[in-house]
């Protein structure tokens, strides 16, 4: 696989590569403003056309710096960013609330984020609420029928990937030759913290993707549906996934999508084999006692 120029820091360029030429209107969703111009600069949000249809774009902007919250730069999601992203989702829900399922606009998340805002002010005011708010909004939109596709172009790191990406119906990632990073932390840091030799971890991660770093391992775990091999391939892949997600939703197969769907995918690809067994044991044990917890009549 030939190394390609990285897309890290190029969230805005990725928007232009993906949507219909010149169609991106920033900070507006459903004809309403979702943010002032300089609000939450770490996230670029708005409306664009994709294959002629309106979509909501929520992209990391790795080149920006938030002057009000100096820990927010290089694509970090800060408090403003999380709420700005959540607002874009709620505006999408509101705009299409009376539309039939097949007309609910898709949301395209362009993911290139190294983390959630790690500061003192962030902890005092509760950064956890901001990232939580965005995730709940995405889950609500997904369950309401909006197709949501995440496209990882650079970094999708730990809690920031949970925030911006892991609530999507489907997740696509540029392949490893773009230097794409998907992990909780680099294996070198894991090795230091859990006190295991790096060589041992590297060897183990060849067969066991739960330790390892990178889009391919996430693919095996069912955490990424599809790897995309070229930047030109992003647009058609996203269009295709939106279509297949719509079809699944129309058929009532919501459980094949999103985090729950990726659970099944993880078992299928052999990456998370014990998860279904654990759930099966619990289900059987609960069934045996469920009557004790039902109302006495």
């Amino acid at each position: 696989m030939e190394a390609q120029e990285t897309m890290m820091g190029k969230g805005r360029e990725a928007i232009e590569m993906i949507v219909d030429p010149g169609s991106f209107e920033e900070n507006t969703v459903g004809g309403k403003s979702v943010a002032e111009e300089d609000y939450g600069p770490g996230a670029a949000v708005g409306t664009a056309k994709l294959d002629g249809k309106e979509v909501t774009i929520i992209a990391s902007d790795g080149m920006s710096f938030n002057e009000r919250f100096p820990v927010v730069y290089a694509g970090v999601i800060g408090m403003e960013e999380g709420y700005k992203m959540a607002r874009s989702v709620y505006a999408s829900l509101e705009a299409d609330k009376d539309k039939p399922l097949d007309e609910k606009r898709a949301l395209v998340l362009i993911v290139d984020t190294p983390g959630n805002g790690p500061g003192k002010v962030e902890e005092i005011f509760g950064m956890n609420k901001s990232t939580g708010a965005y995730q709940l909004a995405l889950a609500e939109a997904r369950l309401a029928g909006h197709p949501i596709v995440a496209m990882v172009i650079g970094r999708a790191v730990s809690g920031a990937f949970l925030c911006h990406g892991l609530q999507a119906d489907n997740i696509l990632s540029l392949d490893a030759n773009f230097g794409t990073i998907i992990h909780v932390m680099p294996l070198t840091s894991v090795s230091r913290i859990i006190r295991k030799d790096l060589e041992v971890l590297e060897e183990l991660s060849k067969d066991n993707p739960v330790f390892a770093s990178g889009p391919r391992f996430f693919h095996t775990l069912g955490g990424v549906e599809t790897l995309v091999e070229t930047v030109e391939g992003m647009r058609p892949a996203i269009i295709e996934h939106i279509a297949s997600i719509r079809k699944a939703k129309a058929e009532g197969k919501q459980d094949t999508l999103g985090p729950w769907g990726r659970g099944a995918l993880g078992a299928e690809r052999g990456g998370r084999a014990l998860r279904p067994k654990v759930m099966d044991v619990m289900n059987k044990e609960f069934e045996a006692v469920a009557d004790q917890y039902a109302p006495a009549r």
Partner: protein
Amino acid sequence: MSKWNDLQEHSFLESNARDRALGIVDDGTFTELAGPFDRLSSPHLELLGDAVAFDDGLVSGVGRIGKTPVFVVSQEGRFIGGSIGEVGGAKMANTIKLAIDFHDKLVADYPDLSEEEKPVLVISFETGGVRLHESNAGLLAHAEVMDLFQKARGKVPVISLIGSKVGCFGGMGFVAAATDVIIMSEFGRLGLTGPEVIEQEMGKEEFDSSDRALVFRTTGGRHKYIIGDANFLVADTIAAFREKVAELAPLPVAAFEEMRRVGSPETVERQVRGVALAAEMHPQDARDVWAKAGNDDPASLTDMPLAAFLGQVKRLSV
């Protein structure tokens, strides 16, 4: 005296996950699901040559408080910091799934089902989030939990209990934020980024992670209560947490929606006003925010007895 009676006056802070689970629900009603006898331990830890726990550091099950079925998840900080791996993550996610499915079944089977007969979910947090030994699986489990919380909306209220040693940080910090209601003790801590990481990021002058008082002012129960991130602040006993859960459990699900901090366009707008205040104030210390909330002598709030604190504290409103 039974074990359950004995547990009630135990310090919540000092209690292990199983005792918290047993003591929160009515005496003798707790059934553990995927408990230690099922020996579902982490294959990944085994591969690394590390010790495993037969419950993977997470107790899951179901009990009752009065007429309310109470599904319980309780995390064990003594086992690798309460971290979430594949097995514990699956247990946590599936407990929520079972609660939702049981709700749907009861609603279908009992046309006269009352509000207090509908299930609730209680999560006793003690965790720093993802278990690094099996980080990818832990991460994916967090996403499943967030999805299931949204699926539980309007059906199963989710109640967080935070008052254990490790606190509630990392990914589990926003998992807790996404629940309906948060009950803390003053010894509980809730946040996203742990103190050591903030120090590493901002420097020791800005944030000294070895300064216990500073750490508690920033993420501790009293601060989280003032700022509105904790709905209730209770004493450090299992009985005190249980009493608050018992008071909430029979409430209709709509009442829980009103306690939420995030999860709707309206709550997001309220939080946006809070962030604007953060940008305007740039507090050096949580005490600056306490003063802003109308507390004339913020320094005194740290050490006064809990009852006095609750009697006089003013909470931030934005």
